[in-house]
């Protein structure tokens, strides 16, 4: 077990240092046909209104991102405002942006649906309103840059971690929404990462739904249906602690291994107690901050580029850093 923890910690250090990679060309306002209304505000030294649209302001992950936006809001000359639907509703996200379009000096967006949002984002770019993507990229649009985690890469790292923990055996992959783009990207990466371990078989991808009892029940049923599964790889924040809770309730510590994402309170507790082997953080606070900061820099004439917020791995070896 100690050897395993050491391996995971070493992997964490390695990955944190190497994750990254530009996805778009650096851009400068001189290459952008800025909307005259925004140009006049900059010239007059007026406060700039930057909106940060999050795909579901009611989910567990949102408060972390919002903390970063609040930090950015304290910058001089910038008013940063969070918008977004309660529940991942693309139509509502579009409606809110359209309503505020005339007052927007810049938009940072994590799209509910890349394809649904892309036409609006492209229209905004054409009208000279700068748009960047954060947290979840929107490659289907003409957004200027992206600040966030490379989802395929983070999935790959999760798969690799599971492979190192497990060595051989059967794995189920859990996700809140198997059809969402972020989930598909991470799943693709996870399967690629696991492919390097020929003695590991992915049994299925489990779509847990989003309601906590529903998530736990889905994991409970899947584990009963597949009693020979020894690994649960969660692709997101919310089925990760549920998988840890299942391990705790079923006395499966050491027999069933869990690798997941993000740092919800219960996930941190479960790592400290050994029910979850590892979790991958994507620095959501920084994502929220950079969403605003990149636009502020762009509007003030600085050249901006993609920011990869990286892959930080937490295990029982380093989880105390958070306490």
């Amino acid at each position, binding site marked *: 077990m100690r050897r395993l923890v050491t391996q995971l910690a070493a992997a964490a250090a390695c990955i944190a240092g190497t994750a990254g990679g530009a996805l778009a060309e650096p851009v400068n306002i001189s290459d952008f046909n800025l909307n005259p209304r925004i140009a006049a505000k900059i010239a007059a030294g007026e406060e700039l209104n930057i909106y940060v649209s999050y795909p*579901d*302001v*009611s*989910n*567990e992950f*949102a*408060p972390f991102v*919002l903390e970063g936006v609040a930090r950015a809001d304290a910058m001089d000359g910038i008013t940063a405002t969070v918008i977004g639907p*309660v*529940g991942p509703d693309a139509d509502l996200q579009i409606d809110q942006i359209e309503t505020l379009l005339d007052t927007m000096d810049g938009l940072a967006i994590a799209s509910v649906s890349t394809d649904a949002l892309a036409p609006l984002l492209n229209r905004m770019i054409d009208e000279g309103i700068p748009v960047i993507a954060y947290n979840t990229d929107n490659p289907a649009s003409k957004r200027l840059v992206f600040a966030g985690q490379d989802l395929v890469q983070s999935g790959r790292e999760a798969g690799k971690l599971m492979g190192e923990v497990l060595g051989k055996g059967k794995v189920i992959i859990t996700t809140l929404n*198997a*059809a969402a783009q972020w989930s598909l990207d991470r799943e693709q990466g996870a399967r690629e990462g696991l492919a390097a371990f020929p003695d590991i078989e992915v049994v*299925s*991808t*489990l*779509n847990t739904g*989003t*309601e*906590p*009892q529903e998530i*736990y*029940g*889905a994991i*409970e*049923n*899947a584990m*009963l*249906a597949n*009693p020979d599964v020894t690994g649960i790889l969660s692709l997101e924040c*919310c089925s990760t*602690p*549920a998988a840890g*809770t299942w391990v705790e*309730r079923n006395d499966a510590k050491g027999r069933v291994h869990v690798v997941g994402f993000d740092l*919800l*309170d*219960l996930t941190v*507790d479960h790592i400290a107690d050994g029910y979850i082997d590892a979790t991958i953080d994507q620095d959501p606070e920084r994502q929220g901050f950079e969403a605003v900061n990149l636009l502020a820099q762009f509007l003030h004439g600085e050249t901006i580029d993609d920011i990869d917020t990286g892959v930080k791995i937490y295990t029982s070896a380093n989880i105390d850093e958070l306490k």
Partner: protein
Amino acid sequence: MDEQMAVKAAAGGAPSRMRRFRLGREFGVFVALVVLCVALTLLNDRFLTPTNLLNIGRQVSLMGIMAVGMTFVLVSGEVDLSVGSTYGLCGIAVGVLLVAGYPLALAIAAGLVLGAGIGLINGVLSTYLRVPSLIATLGTLSMVRGAALILTDGKPVTVNARNGVGEADLAMFEFLGQGKVLGIPMQLAFFIVIALAGWFLLSRTSFGFRIFAVGGSAKAARVSGINVASVKIWALTLMGTLAALAGTLSLAFLPSGQAGRMGLGLELDVIAATIVGGTTLAGGEGTILGTVLGVLIIGVLRNGLVLTGVSPFAQEFLIGLVIVVAVAIDKWSTSSKSN
């Protein structure tokens, strides 16, 4: 004509208990449940194991507790769409109070009173203010969910010792959600007790008679001296209280809740299970037995589809299909009997 005679007249007399069961809507649901269980037993040898059956029982318990309340509401001719949000807010509120250091009994009592209050508001809106309950509870669905998000600022509420919850209160809270009585998970034990109490209240008391009378014909009930508004308000208040209880048990089972997700969309599952069990949206018809069977059908189906390895997307399709088919068969058999 006194009150109970009016109700009996509306119900069309009283056949024997066994005949009533065989003729009743529950019989078809019961047969469907048996067929489903036999099929799943043949398809997967893990279905008919004590562990799995207890899992199913526990997994449907919270939905079942709320479905009992929903039976009262639907039979009275109303509907409550806010139950998922009430479940979330009240569970979260209990958690917030526990983390703030309030005693367990006070926290749970406050959660239940909050749920009852939401039900009372729904009742007043849909009776005295004459806002149709579909619209009134659609509004409170959103308001209550918003209140939960405001209360927590969207952050998860985790009830554990690390957050300062006292040892004795935590142990009791965890027992309520995770403990067992005679080998039965506590959530399931609560469901059994609530279902029995609901059955008694609906079929053996004058309150139950009044619920049927009001739902069957509000005008006739009013003429026979029943306070229609009062009956409906009590039904919705009961619903709110049971949603609060289910939310509290949910947080006791999974000790971390988040306002944006807890109980999200649960109202549709609760209404679907109640209707599959033979309760009509039009009011005046329904039984607790039918509701329990409806809840079990949904639970067994969800469990069985995972056990048999059906793809997650196909699962959603099949559950929807079963709800539609069950209600269609029910309508068909009802109209056949009428003819």
